[in-house]
């Protein structure tokens, strides 16, 4: 462990990874309770469009990914309210559409190489100082929002209409929540990868729900699972040269299965 942390790149990966574990699990609690799980997958694919533009145009892919994911989140909310289409169908269309756009941009720009692979599956080797800084800045803003409004978001997740009738600004908070979730997903693709971030957001909460405890404890358990799986997964990634996203996600899935078995009635 000390040997692993003596490398600068691993220190950066751990700082970024732990920050993302906190962000993904805290926001994930609301994502799961509001039944937005598929939305996190869709936003991750939309973020990839930003990565593709960044890679081809030579800008920082993470920044452009944040912008692309926010744009996609707002578009989804608009489509949901403007057209009474099935909302999961909108998500499915956006998911494959974004992936198609990203692949075409990358192919046309001739950037279809290892760096795209690292954004798909996560890579601890590629986390730069700039990435850590970006994650810290946007991540802190997102975390402050989530903690400030956690009670309101919890109430909305429980019963949107009752929350509205008791004077909570439901529409505004929904809008901010999807924005923050979009930011967190875009930030996470460096470490976890866009194909796997949905899992880090959703599975720790679903695993925590198996313990059937109150809101605060569910959130804390989910946080613990996410942090543990990031540390464990990144260590596996380091020792066995595997993509970090895959090892993190497999770790959290194992935790989920264990939680399921020990809480079986």
């Amino acid at each position, binding site marked *: 462990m000390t040997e692993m942390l003596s490398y600068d790149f691993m220190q950066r990966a751990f700082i970024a990874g732990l920050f993302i574990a906190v962000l993904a699990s805290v926001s994930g609690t609301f994502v799961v309770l509001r039944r937005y799980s598929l939305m996190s997958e869709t936003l991750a694919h939309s973020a990839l469009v930003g990565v593709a533009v960044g890679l081809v145009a030579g800008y920082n892919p993470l920044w452009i990914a944040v912008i692309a994911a926010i744009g996609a989140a707002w578009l989804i909310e608009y489509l949901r309210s403007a057209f009474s289409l099935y909302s999961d169908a909108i998500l499915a269309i956006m998911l494959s559409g974004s992936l198609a756009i990203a692949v075409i941009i990358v192919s046309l720009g001739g950037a279809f190489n290892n760096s795209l692979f690292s954004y798909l599956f996560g890579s601890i080797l590629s986390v730069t100082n700039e990435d850590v800084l970006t994650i810290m800045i946007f991540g802190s803003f997102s975390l402050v929002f989530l903690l400030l409004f956690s009670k309101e978001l919890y109430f909305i997740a429980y019963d949107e209409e009752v929350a509205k009738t*008791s004077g909570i600004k439901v529409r505004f908070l929904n809008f901010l929540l999807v924005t923050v979730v979009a930011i967190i997903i875009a930030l996470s693709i460096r470490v976890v990868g866009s194909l796997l971030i949905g899992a880090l957001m959703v599975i720790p909460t679903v695993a925590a729900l198996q313990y059937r405890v*109150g809101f605060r404890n569910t959130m804390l358990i989910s946080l613990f699972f996410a942090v543990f799986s990031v540390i464990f997964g990144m260590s596996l990634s380091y020792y066995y040269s595997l993509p970090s996203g895959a090892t993190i996600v497999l770790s959290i899935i194992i935790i989920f299965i264990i939680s399921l078995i020990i809480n079986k009635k």
Partner: protein
Amino acid sequence: MKFKVPIFDVKNLHFTVRGQKILSDVSFEIYEGEYIAIIGPNGGGKTTLIRMLLGLTQPTSGDIKIFGKKLKEFKEWHKIGYVPQRATLVDESFPATVEDIVKMGRIAKRGIFAGASRQDKAMVEDAMIKMDILNLKDKMVGTLSGGQRQRVMIARALASAPKILILDEPNTGVDMLSQKRFYTLLAKLNKEENITILFITHDIGVIADDIGRLFTINQKATICNDPKKMLSCEEVSDLYGIDAHALHNHKHEH
């Protein structure tokens, strides 16, 4: 009492969906301290009416004033406690203890940066005591019976110190014994705390004797100011001919 500003002042409310009239020219006032039951057939517009009072559905035309203010300008929503129809049918896996739910009643009242104050905590506890669920406070809501859940939902509404409680068919999924207890609790809140009660009920047979007025909603509203003479209210007996007699017999049994 009538010189006071009414809690709800509803004038000429109309609601039409895809050419189909749901509510037509509904007007009434509700004053502080009243105990009102709304009855009417399925699809008659009861729930739509309540949703309009709460600002969840926009009327096609007509005016609603709450505490003398136009609905759009009304901000003190904590004065109105709402218990929706599906309240007792909670998702069993939702991570909420009884206390988590009752605390929700205090959220909108306090500012963003404020934590739970001593008053918040006292109000939450007080609401749980009134609904006799303090002993259940650490229990998960999903594990409770229908009757217990119903009391949790009312405690949540009470925690914001409302002037009026609006309940939409609160007895869905609740056994008879709990229903009786529920009506006793409502009457107590009305008499002892002066909380105005407005509730929809599907089943005229269980309406308690404490009701002050009875609204029959079937596209139009018919207001019966003396429920004791309910059987002579034409609209009621038209709608509920058989049930009204059942109610009559029911009352004689006790």
